[in-house]
């Protein structure tokens, strides 16, 4: 795959050209919160951001999604076709999270056509992180601040220029279509890129002991450790809703009389209602069981099912938990380190 240079004075044109052809999504600042949203001009792009508060998963797996309309048992209209989209400015951890969501929504046994359609029609342009935050621990979670995984194109911010690297054929195609804005790389650019990679990895200060964690958790379902960890947890939905890999949902009918929509809504394993059964029985009675589920799912079950830890180390849950229940500390406690 190719590596090219985009000088920053051309960044605006680069984005404008994309906006002409695609729906372009990028980090924007909306009412004080950063999130991925459609932009219509390059100026809307958030100026300085480390990573968005809201993860980009909602562009593929929206908070609420009407699957179809129905009337008297008849399906009226189905999922509209998505248009071609580009997401600009994703971070490598979030790009990785999409590959994890693929395993869930586009797996061997179950396929979610809505999710798959969006994935297929989206090209992802990520930007490598030069300065990880103090809450970032992606290198412990199978990715890195400069990882290509999940991106179609990866940019390196070299100061004056971006080094533009195509990762997939989809990315290559996009680069080719904007070839006139790009120039060839010089030896010095490659050197700068290598430096960026080096500092990014050195700057990564936070980590969790994921090695052997799955095996460790194997026998820990009934461990007394869970009795204490959950005590301060409020059982809110912040850590799951803001997590780029959490993907639980609930399906409800929003109907008036016999006409309405079948809607897929986000749900969270941290909510008591998540597991309540028709009989009234709730197998996960307290925050203890719910927090255990969250940890088990991320670090054990998903490793069994998909061979991957369902945490990419973005640190969103760490930053936003209202009681500072830090997932890194929980993992350390579990692994006894």
């Amino acid at each position, binding site marked *: 795959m190719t590596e090219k240079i985009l000088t920053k004075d051309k960044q605006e044109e680069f984005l404008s050209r994309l906006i002409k052809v695609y729906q372009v999504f990028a980090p924007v600042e909306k009412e004080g919160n950063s999130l991925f949203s459609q932009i219509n001009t390059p100026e809307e792009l958030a100026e300085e951001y480390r990573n968005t508060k809201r993860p980009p998963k909602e562009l593929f797996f929206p908070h609420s999604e009407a699957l179809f309309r129905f009337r008297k048992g008849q399906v009226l209209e189905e999922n509209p076709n998505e248009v071609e989209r580009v997401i600009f400015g994703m971070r490598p951890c979030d790009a990785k999270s999409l590959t994890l969501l693929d395993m869930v929504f586009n797996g061997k046994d179950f396929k979610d056509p809505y999710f798959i359609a969006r994935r297929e029609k989206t090209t992802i342009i990520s930007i490598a992180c030069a300065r990880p935050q103090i809450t970032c621990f992606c290198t412990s979670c199978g990715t890195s601040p400069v990882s290509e995984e999940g991106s179609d194109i990866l940019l390196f911010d070299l100061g004056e220029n971006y080094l533009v690297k195509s990762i997939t054929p989809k990315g290559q195609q996009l680069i080719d279509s904007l070839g006139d804005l790009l120039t060839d790389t010089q030896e010095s650019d490659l050197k700068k890129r290598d430096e960026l990679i080096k500092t990014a990895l050195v700057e990564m200060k936070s980590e969790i002991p994921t090695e052997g964690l799955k095996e460790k958790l194997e026998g820990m379902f009934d461990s007394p450790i869970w009795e*204490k960890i959950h005590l301060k947890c409020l059982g809110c939905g912040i850590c799951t809703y803001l997590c780029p890999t959490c993907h639980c949902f609930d399906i*409800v009918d929003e109907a008036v009389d016999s006409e309405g929509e079948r809607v897929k809504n986000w749900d969270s394993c941290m909510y008591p209602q998540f597991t309540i059964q028709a009989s009234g029985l709730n197998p996960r*009675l307290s925050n203890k069981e719910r927090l255990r589920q969250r940890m088990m799912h991320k670090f054990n079950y998903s490793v069994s099912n998909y061979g991957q830890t369902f945490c990419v180390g973005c640190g969103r849950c760490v930053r936003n938990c209202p009681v500072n229940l830090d997932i890194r500390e929980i993992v350390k406690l579990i692994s006894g380190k």
Partner: protein
Amino acid sequence: MKQIQSRLRQTARQLLSEGKVDLLIGYRQGSLPLKTTPCFVSQEEEAVGLVWNSFCTNNLAVYLPGLFRPDPRSRKREEKKVGIVVKGCDCRSVVGHLKEDQVPREDLVIIGVPCQGMIDEKKIVAKLEGKEIIKAKEQDGQILVVDEKGQEIRLAKGNFLRDSCQVCQHPVPPLYDILIEGETARQALSDEYAEVKELEERSIDQRWEFFQREMSKCIRCYACRNACPLCYCPECFAEQSQPRWVGTTDDPSDIMAFHLGRIFHTAGRCVDCGACEAACPMGIELRKLTRKLIKDVEELFGYETGVSVEEPPPLATYKLDDDDEFIK
């Protein structure tokens, strides 16, 4: 501060060693700068981990009703004595619990701490304009922050207090078993309802705009509800499904219905501890709404929340001459 902290540790050690409490809820150092984290101490030795500083924002009263509820499996309530560290506002939440019979007074040891106001982390983050905070500590009424470039920044604590602390009228807990000796050095704002009044004076369309804008940020994580000590219902109306009161979609109307329902449930009960607003990850100005009710409860019924256990809650009582003007 330091003195309060050592007195607090001393008290905790004593209570635990004498068996006067089985469990003590306090604060310990958090994992991130500008944060402490709630902790549950049951061993005497753990008392040294307790901290007291300007980052003790969480309202620990939120844990009380759950601790005294019967175990869902055995349906029995474990006999235990619980100690809790409270600031003025947290204490007033406890008064609410006692009034509403959620917590047995005899099993509770209230450790009051005179409060000098807590820091609003969001204000400091905003001040640093995107620069990351690596370290923070408190020193002589100042907050010392080290940013990512290693630069030290000194901030006057008074400028970064939580909004709820700036209008607090009860820095000293009104009810306690033990009061830690200490100062409360703070002045309340001259007009505590200035923000509410400012909104009241706007046009109806502008008020709707404000409400709509705030609600549009909501991700429905329910942290505001779960952080509120008074939102202790084992099953919230927002989650009841037979009948379903509020839809679970992200339709703005459903989000608004949730908030209207929740906030109205706190009418005459909310003590303005600010826990809901502090917990909200999206920075929604919930206190503007809760304070409107506090103001009206005061105006209409002359009632102040969280000061007396005996006085009946304003919506569970009435006067023959209550305002009737608005009724046809």
